[in-house]
């Protein structure tokens, strides 16, 4: 998947890339099971062509967009982002795609649109995890419109220079580098603009544990574990010390202004 290096400030970290073997074999994609090895084993059943994304809600130009058109919508960029999972591990991944804002501007949200809701595919025929009662299906995530418009928020179609592997959310997914990984919904089939805050899958399943914002924040612990540190996958072997987690996953300079005046402990 051809792309040029992004020139966007903060979009290319120089940290050591996670091995693609690790990034494609250690995945949270509950539609294929809760075990991290299951998506790599089971996601081959996912059918990514034909694929289209429904754009609806509070926009001037709603409609169904084919994957082929989305691929041509804006120039492909490579961006190297840190990915911090809410479970306390992290990776460094080179994504291929473009800013979600490119798409949002083309569909022209109405003045009343304040949030964007993202829905993942939920196909019981190809996704064995959909039938489990762990999470409600389909998987739903959401962002405030200004978060969705932030240039770092990415619509990704590839990683490591290749088309997205199925276990990583093919054929297109969201990547929001300053939020915990589960905010970056995979295998998107619908993008909806709303006035009210979307009811996200994790927010419905365990509201006391997973807030709507879920910004990476070392000062706000998960109820069951500390978020102060993280294990960088593949770094220096088993006995490597965990590294300190950074506020907004190290993207504070780029995104802190979105949350000016907000109490991040309340809006976790």
């Amino acid at each position, binding site marked *: 998947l051809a792309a040029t290096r992004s020139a966007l400030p903060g979009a290319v970290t120089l940290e050591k890339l996670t091995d693609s073997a690790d990034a494609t*074999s*250690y995945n949270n994609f509950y539609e294929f099971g809760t075990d991290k090895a299951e998506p790599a084993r089971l996601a081959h059943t996912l059918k990514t062509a034909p694929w289209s994304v429904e754009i609806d809600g509070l926009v001037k130009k709603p409609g169904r967009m084919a994957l082929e058109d989305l691929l041509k919508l804006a120039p492909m960029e490579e961006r190297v982002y840190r990915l911090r999972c809410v479970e306390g*591990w992290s990776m460094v991944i080179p994504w291929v795609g473009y800013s979600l804002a490119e798409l949002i501007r083309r569909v022209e949200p109405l003045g009343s649109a304040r949030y964007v809701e993202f829905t993942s595919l939920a196909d019981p025929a190809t996704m064995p995890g959909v039938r489990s009662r762990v999470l409600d299906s389909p998987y739903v995530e959401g962002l405030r419109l200004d978060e969705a418009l932030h240039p770092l928020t990415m619509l990704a179609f590839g990683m490591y220079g290749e088309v997205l592997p199925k276990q990583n959310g093919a054929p297109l997914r969201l990547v929001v580098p300053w939020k915990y990984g589960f905010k970056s919904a995979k295998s998107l089939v619908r993008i909806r603009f709303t006035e009210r805050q979307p009811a996200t899958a994790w927010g419905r399943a*365990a509201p006391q*544990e997973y807030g709507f914002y879920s910004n990476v924040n070392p000062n706000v612990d998960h109820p*069951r574990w*500390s978020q102060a540190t993280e294990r960088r996958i*593949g770094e220096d072997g*088993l006995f490597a010390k965990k590294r300190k987690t950074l506020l907004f996953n190290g993207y504070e300079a780029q995104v802190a202004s979105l949350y000016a005046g907000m109490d991040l402990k309340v809006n976790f």
Partner: protein
Amino acid sequence: MPRTRARGLLSPWAKVAVFVCAAVPAVWLIGAAATDRLGANPAESLLRGTGDWTLRLLCVTLAISPLRRGLQQPALARFRRMLGLYTFFYAVLHALAWAWLDQGFEWADMVRDIAKRPFILVGFTAFVLLVPLAATSFNRAIRALGARRWQRLHRLVYAVAGLALLHFFWMRAGKNDDAEVAVYAALVALLLAERSLHFFKKNAVLPASTGH
């Protein structure tokens, strides 16, 4: 009239076989960790793996007495102490994996983690309760305590089982993923139900026959 007793159970080799079998998961986990075959997050695999095996060995240990009675194989009792000690061994590995790989032996962080998080506190308490059981598992300790007191002390294992299940349940609760927890809980419930049934049967007969 007892059924045929499996005489192999009395062979000294039977103990060796059980010893080796119970060691296999630990050897495998440590070997796989040393040769980088535990996937992308070996620390997590070790932590989970040692926890799983602690719970499994605990279930096997608790199954000995019901099986001994149900199958009328008194010789099974020979393996109970070893399996109990193996449960403790895996619990030590689990606690060590947490202290070392997860917490990096940062003592202040560990104390804070235990105090702050019920799920860690419950697991830690279960581990602490196992210590006196392991420490009094040899014959001299049984003699020193007296059989009755020793037995009463070792009933702590039921509390350990409950706490271990709660620990596991809370670990999974956030993911709404309690299918596996339910399997272990059902197994432990079954083993404890057999015990209470046995206890009531014994007590229903005893008062009449002792003549008090």
